[in-house]
């Protein structure tokens, strides 16, 4: 099923390993270059900026091709209007095949054609079925899964995960009110089953190039599991889907369960992540904790925002400070020392950018316009920007 050469896929893992070993200081730069020369790999872009640039260019190319086709077809054929998007999708898949044969993988250009093909297919089905969501999700899921199996394209696997969840949702909607009521529990069960299913898949895996393809749905299930029974999500969705407006003094059914779920699951993730040394789960747990806090603040304003921010900052500082103090000298296991092999410090480079966005100074407003305006509204941080 895979269009790519299996040797190249194996080499991909080896070259990645060589890169990490080089940055860890285990092998020299010359040795790394030698390894790269010895092992042929795909035409790919590891830099995200460059890949994004090629994705944009690829999309331009793809849409201009579609434009040319429709220009010809519309002038001659009346029924082209009905099949146009199928043709566009075919162009996308054909382009993806062509690029894959020329050994493009993770380059940006191939992303444009694969994702473009999938989304055009979705639009085509939508037009044929007049927007029947279940059928659209079904066909998009099939197409994206085939794309993944053929090109090992991770982004289409993500599309597949979302489409599969959409099938579950719209499928339950078919059952009317009962389906909508059991939706959170069904989604939770679905996520749990597939989490353990993919986990088992990873444990039994022998080919390295399928590893990321199992890791992604695995992490997706974690996120879905948390969101499925999060109090905010459940309450808002039930308001939208069932029209259940929550009256004052009342709460949604099983509210206690959902509250407990909202708080227990992130903590569970955190503990489990630290126990099994699972970095992805750790990050998901951070995000989940953040979202749980947001959930509470969404319904109950426990503290005024400025006090909450200040106190939150202090608490977070204390947590970080004491953890650093405790972990500073550890040589094995959990530690504060940077890992020589795997370091996730990409965000540290973005720090300066975030500071500039949040606290950058703005030019002053001329006092003549309004005596209340004064310079540097940005001083006071995100919340009050521009309001001075």
């Amino acid at each position, binding site marked *: 099923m895979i269009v790519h050469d299996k040797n190249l896929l194996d080499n991909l893992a080896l070259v990645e390993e060589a890169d990490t070993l080089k940055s860890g200081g285990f092998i020299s730069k010359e040795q790394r270059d030698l390894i790269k020369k010895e092992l042929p790999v795909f035409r790919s872009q590891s830099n995200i900026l460059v890949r994004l640039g090629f994705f944009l260019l690829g999309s331009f190319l793809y849409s201009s091709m579609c434009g040319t086709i429709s220009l010809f077809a519309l002038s001659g054929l009346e029924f082209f209007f009905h099949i146009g998007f199928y043709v566009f999708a075919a162009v996308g898949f054909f382009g993806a095949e062509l690029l894959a044969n020329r050994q493009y993988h993770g380059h940006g250009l191939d992303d444009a054609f694969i994702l473009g093909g999938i989304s055009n297919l979705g639009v085509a089905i939508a037009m044929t079925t007049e927007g029947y969501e279940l059928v659209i999700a079904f066909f998009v899921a099939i197409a994206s899964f085939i794309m993944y199996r053929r090109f090992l394209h991770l982004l289409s696997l993500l599309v597949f995960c979302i489409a599969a969840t959409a099938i579950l949702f719209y499928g339950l909607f078919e059952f009317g009110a009962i389906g909508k009521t059991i939706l959170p529990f069904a989604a939770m069960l679905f996520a749990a089953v597939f989490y353990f299913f993919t986990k088992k898949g990873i444990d039994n895996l022998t080919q390295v190039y399928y590893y990321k393809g199992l890791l992604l749905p695995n992490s997706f299930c974690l996120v879905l599991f948390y969101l499925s029974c999060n109090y905010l999500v459940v309450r808002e969705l039930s308001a939208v889907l069932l029209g259940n407006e929550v009256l004052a003094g009342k709460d949604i059914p099983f509210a206690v369960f959902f509250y407990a779920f909202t708080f227990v699951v992130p903590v569970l993730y955190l503990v489990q992540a630290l126990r099994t040394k699972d970095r992805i789960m750790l990050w998901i747990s951070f995000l989940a904790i953040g979202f749980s806090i947001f959930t509470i603040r969404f319904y109950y304003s426990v503290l005024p925002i400025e006090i909450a921010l200040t106190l939150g900052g202090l608490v*977070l500082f204390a947590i*970080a400070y004491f953890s650093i103090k405790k972990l500073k000298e550890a040589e094995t296991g959990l530690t504060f020392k940077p890992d020589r*092999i795997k370091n996730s410090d990409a965000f540290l480079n973005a720090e300066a950018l975030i500071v500039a966005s949040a606290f950058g100074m703005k030019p002053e407003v001329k006092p003549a316009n309004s005596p209340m305006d004064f310079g540097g509204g940005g001083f006071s941080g995100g919340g009050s920007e521009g309001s001075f």
Partner: protein
Amino acid sequence: MNKFDDQAAKSLLDKNLITENQYQEIAAYRNLNIFSLNAELKLFLYLSVLLFTSGIGILIYKNIDSIGHIAILSILFIIICVCFYYCFKNSKGFQKTETTFENPVLEYLVLAANILTCIFIGYLQFQYEAFGTHYGLATLIPTIVSFSCAYYFDNKSVLTIAITGLAAYVGLSVTPQDLLNNNNFYSEQGLSYSAIMLGVFLILWTIYSSRINLKTHFSIIYLTFALHLISIAAISNLINDYIIWLAFAVVLAGSSYYFYNISHKLKAISLYVFMIIYAYIGFNILLFRVFANIDFSDIWMLFVLLLPAYFVGSIVLFIKLIKNFNKEIAE
């Protein structure tokens, strides 16, 4: 722990690409089973600074009339003093090269102290008009404080605040979100000139500091600001109706040429990619302006047909450019 990592090292050994010794060393290190929370905890520190200073900022803004001014000022002043005291106590003093604190917490303390100082000065000006009606001073002084902090403690985040302050003094807003919305260049032509001047000044400063070896690792930040300032100012003036747009085309060409060279020298792919993007946008606007004078009513079909070919040509060109860059920085 991922079982495939070890497998990959093993097959590198089998292919004779790494030596037995190296493999042993790698395996021994992996057996330590290290799980580093370095980046995560630093992120926490960073977030805590952002949350705390935002909180303080809003607190002061909301209670500007209720709590006593002296109380606010003195509390702020005390916090700032405590922060700076720890930073000075533990710093190695000013150094011309890159330095780091032994304790990473201090790096974030510097940031907090600096932001709080800016709030402090802003508050002073707002409440007491400490700088009279010289409103420029209220921006300039935090800028100077930030620059000194950035250079003394070697802090990149503070440096970006300082640069935005400098731009604000000139009359520009160069926070990333404003640069993306870039509406300040449309409204006033004069601002474009100041933006370009500021960009050129930043470039000159990097040249000067590399000559005297002063914090050369700051260059990339200055150059990033300069690139975006000059390019966005030039591009937004390319659609000007007056003949002046030709001058801006020349500016854009010149800056692209400069950044082409400097990105190779610094091995900075982010500069390189953005330079290409801006140059490409500029080139397309130029093409459009030229074509706008030709009557296309008869051959517009041909134009649409040529479009895919044009994009294929651009893609080939870009692939070449990126390949060249990667080859040259590898040497």
